[in-house]
């Protein structure tokens, strides 16, 4: 079941509020790395109490940034990027998208290059 919190027009507020917290962004990073984790698996990689992780996950669920799938009695958490996409649709024009993508790729490429050089 999905929570009702995100249903109304304050859906976007819930997304921004959820993303404003660093711990919650770390949780999303964890799911981005490996999608569909249980609470236990998420706790292993984070320096937070189980209670704190639970609390943050509920907020992320309410913002519809985390989707839940039940596998038997196991609750699996998935990163749901649809609301983030909706935010980008609001401010990014249709002709800007591929230029932004190119700039993003360039930044990523250059930065990866830099790290590689440092390592050497």
């Amino acid at each position: 079941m999905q929570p009702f919190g995100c249903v109304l027009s304050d859906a976007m507020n819930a997304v921004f509020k959820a993303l404003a917290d660093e711990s919650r962004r770390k949780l999303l990073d964890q799911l981005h790395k490996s999608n569909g984790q249980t609470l236990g698996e998420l706790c292993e990689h984070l320096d937070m109490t189980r209670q704190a992780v639970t609390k943050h996950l509920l907020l992320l669920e309410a913002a519809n940034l985390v989707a839940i799938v039940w596998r038997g009695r196991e609750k699996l958490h998935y990163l749901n990027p649809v609301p983030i996409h909706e935010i980008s649709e609001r401010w990014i024009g249709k002709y800007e998208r591929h230029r932004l993508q190119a700039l993003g790729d360039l930044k990523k490429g250059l930065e990866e290059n830099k790290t590689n050089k440092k390592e050497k």
Partner: protein
Amino acid sequence: MQKPKLVYTTFIRTTPKKLWAAITKPEFTRQYWGEMTNVSDWKRGSKWEHHNPENEVWITGKVLESTPPKRLVLSWADPDDLADKSRVAFEIEAIEDMTCLTVTHGSFKAGSKMAGKVSRGWPRVLSSMKTFLETGKGLNIFCK
């Protein structure tokens, strides 16, 4: 049950029937899914195909489950690489005056290229679908 790889949910101010039609009827998909269409009679066991505007088949598969307007499960493969088959489930649930759509894409074969391709596509398609159903106009989902 294997753990699905990708799960997306979106809440849309519409009815389950309209949402079902938005997925299954070419006249609707054309308006928000980058002019693509989904073609089938949507009966269990039937073939389904995802076409571009030139009617070329981009994705093909079978209808594995079909319970309008609640649940549609499809197998999903590139016609040029049929062995790389996966499975998509659309689940539609009415919640007050909204409809919640959950798309689960999983059962990817080991080393599948499809997972990487669709993980960029689904969020675009789903937010465009939401905009289309709520405003009558889809988004431009391809960055040409």
